[in-house]
């Protein structure tokens, strides 16, 4: 966490105290916050296509505190779902009654929060990888689940994320079936997963995928597997929903 008292500097995720001005330069996006009055600041965001978004932030004192933190990838291009559909770039084969743990690079977005004592007000959000931020449908058009969709690569460990673009998601796979099974995707409600940050890296609460039989159908149970870490928990941008798990059909 960077609790910096000096303006004009930006290095990582964290809380910044702004007395005069500060510029965040992120991939595809530039954000500038500067004083325009004794108790007022302006907020200007410019993206790679030179689209500008401006806000005025009135302040109770002569400084404001802004927290820059990773948030769930659910806002761009529009807030439509709480589910995420991660398509692995390589298939994973699990032999019968076996287990494995993998790390994947899950997309994230960046949230800007106005810090008011312990309370965080959502100020703005951005995505540093807009071209990869898309929707996908899991299931048939009439009854499928709309998800945020991404093709994801495997990561080596929890520290292998691309700054401001993705975070590492630990996926524990367990095959309780009597035959080997290939897995190439995982769909789950990411609203139950918290995100943590340290410097410019992010990690996400893991998921546990259990392949099992229910009656005569093979299914994959997906449940949240909270991680234990000393990284800082990012504030929540959106309201969480009550969905706790997901069942996927197996091919």
């Amino acid at each position, binding site marked *: 966490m960077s609790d910096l008292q000096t303006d004009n500097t930006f290095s990582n995720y964290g809380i910044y105290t702004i007395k005069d001005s500060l510029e965040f330069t992120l991939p595809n996006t530039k954000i500038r916050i500067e004083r325009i009055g004794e108790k007022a600041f302006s907020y200007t965001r410019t993206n790679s296509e030179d689209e500008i978004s401006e806000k005025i932030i009135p302040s109770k004192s002569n400084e404001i505190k802004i927290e820059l933190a990773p948030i769930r990838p659910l806002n*761009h*291009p*529009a807030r*439509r*779902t709480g589910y995420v*559909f991660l*398509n692995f770039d390589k298939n994973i084969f699990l032999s019968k009654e076996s287990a494995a743990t993998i790390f994947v690079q899950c997309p994230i977005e960046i949230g800007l929060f106005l810090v008011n004592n312990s309370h965080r007000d959502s100020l703005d959000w951005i995505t540093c990888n*807009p*071209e990869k*931020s*898309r*929707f*996908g*449908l*899991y299931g048939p*058009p*009439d*009854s*499928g*689940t*709309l998800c945020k*969709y991404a093709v994801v690569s495997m990561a080596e460990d929890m520290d292998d994320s691309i700054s401001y673009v993705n975070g590492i998601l630990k996926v524990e796979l367990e095959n309780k079936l009597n035959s080997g099974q290939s897995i190439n995707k995982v769909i789950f409600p990411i609203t139950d997963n918290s995100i943590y940050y340290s410097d410019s890296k992010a990690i996400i609460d893991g998921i546990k995928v259990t392949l099992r039989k229910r009656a005569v159908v093979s299914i994959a149970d997906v449940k949240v597997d909270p991680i234990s870490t000393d990284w800082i928990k990012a504030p929540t941008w959106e309201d969480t929903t009550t969905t706790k798990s997901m069942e996927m059909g197996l091919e």
Partner: protein
Amino acid sequence: MGVEFLQSLAEMQIAGELTALSLLVGGIIMAVGIIIAKIAKLLFNKYYAPTLPKDTAKNFGKIIYFGIIIIAFLTFTSSQGIDFSGLLVAGGIFAIVIGFATQSVVSNLVSGIFLMMEKPAKHGDLIQLPDLSITGTLLDIGTFSSHLRKFDGTVIRVPNEKFFTSNIRSLSSSTVRRAEAMVGISYKDDIEKAISVIKKEIEITMPLVLRIPEPEFRVEELGDSSVIIQVLVWHPREDWSQVQPILLTTIKKALDSSGIEIPFPQRVLWTAKE
């Protein structure tokens, strides 16, 4: 004084056994009934209606209100010993006459009841009535008519009978919708290349188009002047207005930038040599 006044009212006959006093009592019963109906409706709207779908809450509110008023009226008539048997005969004939005269009103009322029971669409749904050429958001299904807000912001009232007998196409029942466009490319251009550039342009510039299911391309027709390609893309159901209107623009931009021709109708004339 008060007792004498009431006695004088009781002696004041209006018609048959109906006295001024009985009318006063009836008025009080009806007034109390209306007040109770209003309070019951108010309490229902405050505590129970928010937990119910909007249409159901509205209809339940009406049933409670008019139900209590009818009960008050029946209490009034029974307390006064009013005999309706004479009215029944005359009323029967009267009802037939009125029935013929108000056929459409009754038809709308019955259709409204069936619509409320069947619930083909609910408040806020985007629906299309192809028979009536109406598309819009359903505002409510009332006793005699339903109201829809069209895309131009105007509200249209549709008699329940027409609404009930029409085909109803729900545009909000599934999570995703499909947008379609047709484009013609010249015979000399490569179809595979045209599809590839359109697909790439859609992927880059139309973020609301779903990656899965993928955009679909079909060679629809070998036309007189061009090869007609149909482009089908899926998008979240709320975002039709941000996908369908710009789909053709995106396709044209892609074809223009890669030099693929969208031909205009051409006719080759062969003239015989004399």
